[in-house]
């Protein structure tokens, strides 16, 4: 990976191969003034604020699927297990990760193998998130080592569990700031037996989002909904919706949904490989993979405000953009100038949403708030939460916030 993209700079690298070894390393750390940059496969490495740590702790040797019960739709694996291994075994049993795994290697300009722990720590969900929920909705158990070196478990392997505080959710998207994930348990679903995509051509952003909202508000269980403005992937604007279901349901729903959307234009069907490739490209943010010089933002807001937010931003600076999650997820590529558009983008959200600077040079990510800045009350809570897990600030110091 280019030096410029690295988030952490370290003096040495260790690759522990057991939870106990991690626990021992962490216990010794405070007395040795040790700090750790935690990594999985490094594929999401360029996300977050650059920081210094003494040692890179790579968990890629902590691998293996520890439990897979296809009949119960549950899988546990050690945190360093490559996603490719998980996807392979799931495919053999016709099951899926409900939140839809997406591959950010192209957009982030990284190589290597994404790991389960890295995915959970960075909390990334694909297009199916709009219907079936985010990664955090499907992680039902974790084990981790906290900053005291204690081995902690939360959640478990059963589908419904409200026993005690839900630390599982906190570990999802914590960017390794609370502890070293060692094992993750996921809830699965059967793979859809059939799928198809429906496309509308030539809509502007506002019309497209109205169409997507109509489709998502229909009883037809649209499993993905995106809008690609003209020039992003095709010459003309394309608005797409995906159905995933049993074959006979797909047949009925394709007709019904086409009818529902007929006021927005002629519905075009995209089937088979073409549909798979299209959603892969959207999920993997491929429209912004080619030009690595541009900064990339991931913006979350309510779909009904999304087109207005984009218009407001575009009024102040040139951007390229497209929408996933029915309009609620806006991807923006823009010039890497002084603030990469942070001020304009966050002002346009008016506090009702959040913007993450997913890709920019390490200088920019150092200078700009990568994650949505927190209110004072939130900041205090987040800092105290961090210290309740990691009192010596051993793990990924300052990766999310300058002062935490």
């Amino acid at each position, binding site marked *: 990976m280019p030096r410029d993209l690295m988030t952490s700079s370290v003096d040495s690298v260790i690759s522990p191969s057991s939870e106990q070894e991690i626990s021992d390393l962490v216990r010794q750390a405070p007395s040795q003034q040790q700090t750790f940059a935690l990594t999985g496969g490094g594929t999401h490495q360029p996300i977050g604020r650059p920081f210094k740590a003494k040692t890179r702790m790579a968990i890629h040797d902590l691998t293996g699927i520890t439990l897979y*019960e296809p*009949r*119960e739709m549950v899988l546990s694996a050690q945190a360093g297990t490559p996603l490719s291994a998980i996807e392979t075994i799931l495919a053999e049993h016709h099951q899926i990760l409900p939140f839809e795994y997406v591959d950010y290697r192209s957009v982030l300009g990284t190589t290597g193998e994404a790991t389960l722990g890295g995915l959970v720590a960075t*909390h990334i*969900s694909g297009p199916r998130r*709009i219907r079936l*929920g985010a990664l*955090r909705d499907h992680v039902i158990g974790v084990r981790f080592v906290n900053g005291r070196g*204690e*081995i*902690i*478990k*939360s959640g*478990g392997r*059963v*589908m*419904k*569990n*409200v*026993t*005690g*505080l*839900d*630390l599982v*959710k*906190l570990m*999802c*998207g914590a960017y390794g700031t*609370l502890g070293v994930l060692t094992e993750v348990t996921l809830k699965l679903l*059967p793979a859809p037996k059939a799928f198809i995509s429906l496309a509308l051509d030539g809509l502007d952003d506002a019309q497209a989002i*109205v169409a997507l*909202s109509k489709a*998502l*508000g*229909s*009883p037809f269980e649209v499993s993905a909904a995106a809008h690609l403005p003209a020039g992003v992937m095709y010459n003309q604007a394309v608005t797409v919706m995906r159905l995933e279901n*049993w074959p*006979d*349901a797909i047949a009925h*729903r394709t007709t*019904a949904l086409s009818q529902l959307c007929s006021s927005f234009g002629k519905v075009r069907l995209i089937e088979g490989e073409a549909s798979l490739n299209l959603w892969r490209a959207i999920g993997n943010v491929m429209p912004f993979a080619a030009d690595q010089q541009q900064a990339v933002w991931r913006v*979350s*807001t*309510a*779909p009904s405000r999304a087109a207005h937010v984009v218009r407001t931003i575009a009024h102040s600076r040139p951007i390229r953009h497209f929408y996933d*999650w029915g309009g609620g997820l806006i991807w923006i590529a823009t010039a890497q100038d002084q603030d990469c558009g942070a001020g304009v983008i966050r002002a346009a959200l008016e506090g*009702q*949403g*959040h*913007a*993450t600077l997913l890709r920019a040079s390490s200088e920019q990510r150092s200078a700009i708030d990568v*994650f949505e800045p927190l209110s004072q*009350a*939130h900041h205090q*809570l*987040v800092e105290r*939460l961090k210290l*309740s*897990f990691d009192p010596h600030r051993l793990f990924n110091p300052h990766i*999310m916030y300058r002062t935490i």
Partner: protein
Amino acid sequence: MVEGLAEQHSSRYVELGSRHNPEDNKGDHVTDIAFPALNATTLSQRDAIIAGLAACVSADCLITSEDERRAFETDALTAYRRMPLAVVLPRSTEEVAKVLRFCHENGVRVVPRGAGTSLAGGAIPQEDAVVIGVSKLNKILDVNYPDRTIRVQAGVTNLSITEAVMSQGFFYAPDPSSQLACTIAGNIAMNSGGAHCLKYGVTTNNVLGLRMVLIDGTIIDVGGDYLDSSGLDLLGVIIGSEGQLGIVTEATLRILRSSEGARPVLFGFDSSEEAGEAVAAILSAGIIPVAIEFMDKEAIHICEAFAKAGYPLDVGAMLIVEVEGSEAEMESQLAMIVDIARQHHVRVIKESRSALEAALIWKGRKSAFGATGRVADYICMDGTVPTSQLSYVLKRTGEIVASYGLRVANVFHAGDGNMHPLILYNVNDPLEQAKAEAAGNDILKLCVEVGGCLTGEHGVGIEKRDLMPVQFSASDLRQQMRVRAVFDPQWLLNPAKVFPLQGRDAA
């Protein structure tokens, strides 16, 4: 601030009997769930505290008379009753903030309360605690159909959310049996589920944002009307925290479009084992019905006597399987499910042929707890087990309860392995109650033993608090308590709940 109170609030504690109101019932029970020692300073300053509360809210929002407080001394775990110091029913987030700020400054314990339907004792107060109820926060604030969200005050009932959006074909997915009465505040506190969460998830999967008041009176907004959080998932840890991190006053929820049609079908089997096997077979065929509910013979008879739902009385166990979609989709899914049921020797298949019949089938199931309450007192366990263990756990549950000389009715969410054995006993017989509680504990230990958990949707409350070490190590619990202390360092919010009374200092 009450003069001199804050400085003393941690100094003196007194012990009172724990079960029932100590004023009318002294120590006639064999087992007891302990409560924390009462704060003597709070008790001695009762008048000053009430005066302070009166300055926070209008007179009609403050309840102090013994008669009126009695309505708040328990929840649905009625075997335990404790009288609160006072009850406050604020009308706004700002009033909640005022009351919490006052309680915080004076070291007064607080017990948040929704509708008081907790089966785990989550809303049971104590003599030194102020109950803050959300019942007057009962407005639907805003519905947004294009974004499929609804913003409500936290005291609205679960069912009224669906009722507010039904005319447009939408619904709010989590549907606990108590949905007619229970509030969204309580649902958030307990991360409530329901029969349909097999397909649609539980509360935590359907909440986008919250307005919450922290113990010091700070009002925070967590999340909003958009997806996923930036930074730590505070929403995730707040939901299910049983009123120990703050008081939620508003929520933004996901609403979903109802399917074209829904149809529950009854399947009767000779034995629980066959029904359990059928559940596993349906799921492993790649079919996820909206709901798979299980009832054993005892539960069928109790519910049928109450609801006249047309349940078959000559079977050993019954499943209610609900499918959704267009007419043709339901037909084809049902054909597959019927096929699987036949392979597991199904004896009775009863399809609902009208909306009325469908409603009747669900009425029987949803009234299970109420119907059971008419024939006996009961405690309801709530452990979740891996679905492959259902048959074994059912068999062992029967054996455990029988070994205490009691009866059990099983009615539960089989699709996600969330058991609900109702252990029948006589509340006026202290020995029987002790046996029922002991049997319940044995069953929950069994659930953990086979890879499950103590509670799937009812919460820990006081009921399962002392079993927490069965599921969690000391380190696990310490980490949870440290997180709790981030929000409430003095343990003023719902302090009797969730964590064993011993070992709290270690966190």
